[in-house]
Each structure stands twice: as structure tokens, then as C-alpha cells.
């Protein structure tokens, strides 16, 4: 079967580890921006962490504020240039740990901006430490015996955090197989359309594998999402206005 050619926006090989979910998501976003023909109308806001590698392989204007500050930066982006899409590819640490305040502030104001949050349950770039999304029981570099509620508190589930807010879109998806990739692509497009239609804040969380820090072979990491992570963090659209 001939391989599908990557869209032109993906201008070089990505720099992610083998089996990393970020690369798959970036390709999906690249395809959506291309198909919607909005590359010149898009200004990305990067987080810092593995996610920010997209800027080295995607030909789209990008600004990079400090780690986690996308909620603030996107707010300013959209107000200074309301004719441009303001999107971010964020990490779960950036969006929900160091940047939770800015993410929530943008959401509570219902800013017309869009978050794509890559949830791999760890701080990946720094070696797989505890993230807010680390599941109870999950071992990480900084929870060697596994996360416990006593020592580390509960995990963050963005559905529980944001479901009462007056925002445009809140959903969770994954990219573990072609069917899920196709579903994710539709959700990415829908999230961007919410912004196009001026409906307000959108957040799509994507469960992505981190074989390197999960100490798993890539196929096993995909299976782990399907069997474990997506049970802990249910998939679906819970706000769709």
C-alpha cells in the first residue's frame, strides 16, 4: 500500500522518540490546517517540553512564551489579531501543572482560543516524572513506588475541572489506531471551527503514548492507553456548543 504523503506544512522529519504520540498528533493537525486552508491564518502558541518540538518540523508561525503560559499568550494573540486562529499544542504538565492558572483563566473568560493538550501522564522531556495526570498507582521517575493519594494527591481530570464552565468545546480522544486517528482528526477540525465561529474556548485532550518513559515497546504503549489510560480518563465530547 503506498504511504500517504505528509502535507507540505510538515517540512522535515520530526524529532520525537520512536512511537511517540506527539508526532502523530502533529501530523493530524498539519493535515487539518492544510485541508481547511488556514495555515496563513494560524499563529501557534507553543508550550515548552516535548510538545514544543513541533516548531522544528511544522511550517506555521509560532510564538513560544514561558512553560505553561499559553492561556495568557493565546488571549493576547486572539485580541491583537482576531482574524488569526490562536491554537496551542500543550503538554499536560504545561496546561495543568505550571500553567493551570493561565489555562483556567482563559477558560473561565471563555477566550476564543483552542488548546490541544497532549496527555501522556508524565513530564516526558525531563525524564518521566510525576505529572498532574499521572494515575494513582502509576510509577514515574519521581514516584518510584507509584503515585499514592496520600503522598501525591489525586490526579487531574480536565473533564471534572472544566465541565461546569461556559466554554465552547471540551473533549478527549486518542490516536492508538487508524479509527481513533480519524476520529481525532474530526475533533481537531471541530475544535478549530468553534474558534472560527467565535464560540469561545475549546480544549481537546489527546491521550498519547510515551514509550520511552513508560518503558514499553511502542505497540504495548498503544495497548496500555486502550486498556488502562482511557479507562482512567474516559474519551468523548462532554461540551459541544
Amino acid at each position, binding site marked *: 500500500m503506498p504511504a500517504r504523503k505528509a502535507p507540505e506544512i510538515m517540512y522535515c522529519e520530526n524529532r520525537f522518540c520512536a512511537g511517540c504520540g506527539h508526532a502523530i498528533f502533529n501530523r493530524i493537525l498539519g493535515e487539518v490546517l492544510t485541508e481547511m486552508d488556514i*495555515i*496563513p*491564518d*494560524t*499563529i501557534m*502558541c*507553543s508550550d515548552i517540553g516535548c510538545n514544543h518540538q513541533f*516548531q522544528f518540523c*511544522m*511550517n*506555521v*508561525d*509560532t*510564538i*513560544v*512564551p*514561558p512553560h505553561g*503560559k499559553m*492561556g*495568557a*499568550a*493565546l*488571549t*493576547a*494573540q486572539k*485580541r*491583537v*489579531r482576531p482574524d*488569526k486562529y490562536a491554537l496551542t499544542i500543550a503538554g499536560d504538565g504545561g496546561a495543568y501543572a505550571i500553567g493551570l*492558572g*493561565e489555562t483556567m*483563566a482563559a477558560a473561565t473568560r471563555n477566550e476564543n482560543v483552542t488548546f490541544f493538550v497532549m496527555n501522556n501522564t508524565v513530564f516526558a522531556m525531563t525524564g518521566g516524572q510525576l505529572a498532574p495526570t499521572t494515575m494513582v498507582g502509576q510509577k514515574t521517575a519521581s514516584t518510584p513506588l507509584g503515585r499514592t493519594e496520600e503522598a501525591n494527591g489525586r490526579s487531574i481530570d480536565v473533564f471534572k475541572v472544566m465541565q461546569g464552565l461556559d466554554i465552547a468545546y471540551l473533549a478527549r480522544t486518542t490516536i492508538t489506531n487508524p479509527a481513533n486517528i480519524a476520529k481525532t482528526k474530526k475533533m481537531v477540525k471541530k475544535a478549530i471551527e468553534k474558534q472560527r465561529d467565535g464560540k469561545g474556548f475549546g480544549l481537546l485532550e489527546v491521550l498519547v503514548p510515551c514509550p520511552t518513559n513508560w518503558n514499553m515497546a511502542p505497540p504495548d504503549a498503544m495497548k496500555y492507553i486502550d486498556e488502562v489510560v482511557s479507562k482512567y480518563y474516559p474519551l468523548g465530547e462532554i461540551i459541544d456548543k
Partner: protein
Amino acid sequence: MEKKLMKGNEALAEGALRGGCNFFAGYPITPQSEILEWMAAELPKRGGTFIQGESEIASVNMTFAARALGARALTSTSGPGFSLYQEGIAYWVSAGMPCVAACVQRFGIGDGFIFAGQDNYWQAVKGGGNGDYHLITLAPNSVQECHDMAYESFELAEKWMHPVLLLSDGTIGQMTEPCELRPQKEYDIDQYEWTCSGTKPGNDHKVITDITYFEDLDEWNEGYLKKMREISETEQRWENICVDDADIVLVAYGISARVAEGAVNKAREQGFKLGLIRPITLWPYPRKAFEEIPDTCRGVITVEVNMMGQMRDDVIITVKGKYPTFALATRRKVAKVDEVIAFAKDVYDGKVKEEEVY
């Protein structure tokens, strides 16, 4: 020219607006809030964007984003807010973003107090965030200078593609004086090529981040050093008053310079030859101003509203031991004219011991 009675903070905000400012983000903190309030009222009327951020951290990064997308972006704060700005400002520097920040200094450590101080000097001129850098730092000592410095700040920042800091203080910010308003400058957010405005087909994208991610780090370091040396050589500004025959030279900026100037005038009437060097740029420090000090001068005294005489460090670096140096650091109170003269006389008479630096 239009003249108005204004507070320093208002004059600063209006100066920025007339200098082409079309974005402001900030968070309320005394004694700078008039800047935020002026912008809230005026920016939308003039086609700009005002955002009250949810924190100083949000505000400094909103300023970054707005500037990256082309707006002439200002933010202002004070005291602990300025501490929260440091990470964001370091990012401005690493990305070469010509943003402008104003810090209306208040006194104290941590939360501190809401009244005026000059104890942000070290933080303002010695970097403040991580990494090697200085901010181009302008220090107004009048309402007019608040206006004028804000007015020119964007062009100065854009000339060097480097952030500019306006270091005011609670007294200068809150005092009311007549101010001549400058004519409106036109500014278009699409004026510069370097801004992010969307990647056109066939073009390479722009990424506004630490410049060295896309350039050779060693070359960038050499280039940054060269730029800083050029700024240091060409942007020093100062005002010297009666320095060339002075027996004692005062060095003061901002509100302290107003008192020091009064002290020079009164001392001269009494036959005591005081002089004043008023740094207008705090970085680059106006070292050239000190060349005018006569060899017969018996001492150089900084006058500062802080505990440790922070600016004396720069005086020591500048005079290299040629003159003894002292700080009349009057803690939280602005010095009085007679207090300055009395201290200067004691120095003249050899009654004050030169202290070690802190």
C-alpha cells in the same frame, strides 16, 4: 503644544499611547495602578487592546505575545509584581522582543509597602531574570520625563530589538506637575517584517522564541555582547549640575535627584560647592558623566531611598577608587535637602568612614 496637569503615572501612560502603544496588559498594584486605569479608559477608544491579566505572570506573557504579533506592547507593575515579571522579561530578551515595561518602585522586600522606594535598582539594572543581560533602563525624575520616556521607549526598544524598562517610583508616579503632551505617532502592527502574522504560501515560518534555537549559539552570544557594548557606548544619558568644580558630587536619580538638585542649589548659596550627576539611563550606566568630576573632589555620594545604597556599586565600578564613595541611603524616607547638605559636609570634613559594599 498641548499642556496638561497630570500625575506621573498618567503622563507615562499617555506618553506610551502617543508613542504608538496599541497594547497594554497589567495587574493592579499600588503605586502604579493609574497606568492600568488610564490604559483601560483610553486604549479601546484609540483602537488598541487593553487586558487586565489574572496575574502579573499572565500580564507579562500577554505583553510578549502581543509584541510578537506586532503590537507596540506595554506593561507596568511595582514591587513584588516586578519580581513576578522577571521570568517573562528574560524570555523577551532571549527572543529579542522590543517590549516595554514600567516599574513604579515601592519600598520593601517581599510584599513590602505601597509608598515610594528606590530598592528595585539591583533587580532593574543587573539583569533580574536568569542569564546574562541588562535592560535598557530609563529613570524619569519628573512628570514630563515619565511622558517623554514612555513616548520614545518603543522606538528605542525597536532600534535595538531589546526590551526597555522605565524605572519610576511611587513619588514620581503620584506627583502632579504640568506636562507638555507630544504629538501622536502613527504605528501599524504590520510595520515590521519580524512579527508573526501567519506563514504565507511559499514562505518560511517565523518562530518567536529563544533566538538561539534557530541560530548558532556561539555567534548569537558574540552578537549580543557586541550589541550590548554598542548600547553601552551610545545610549548613556545623564544630566550634570555644577559638577566641574564640585568639592562633593552627589549621584541620584528619580525622586532623589529632585532633592539632590535642591541640595546643590542651597549649598552653593551657602558657599559649599556641591555638584550632582543625575543618571537618566541606569543601564547603560552613564560612566562618561563622571569624567567631569575634578581631581580635587573629596567624595562621591549616592542619595537613594533604600537601605543598602544599591547604586553605589555602579559608582564604585565607575570611579575605580579615584574618589571615596558613600551612600546616603535614607531607608524608606526620601532625604531632605538639609540632611543631604549635612551629610555632604561631614564627608567633606572627613567625618564619614567609607563603608564596605554590602
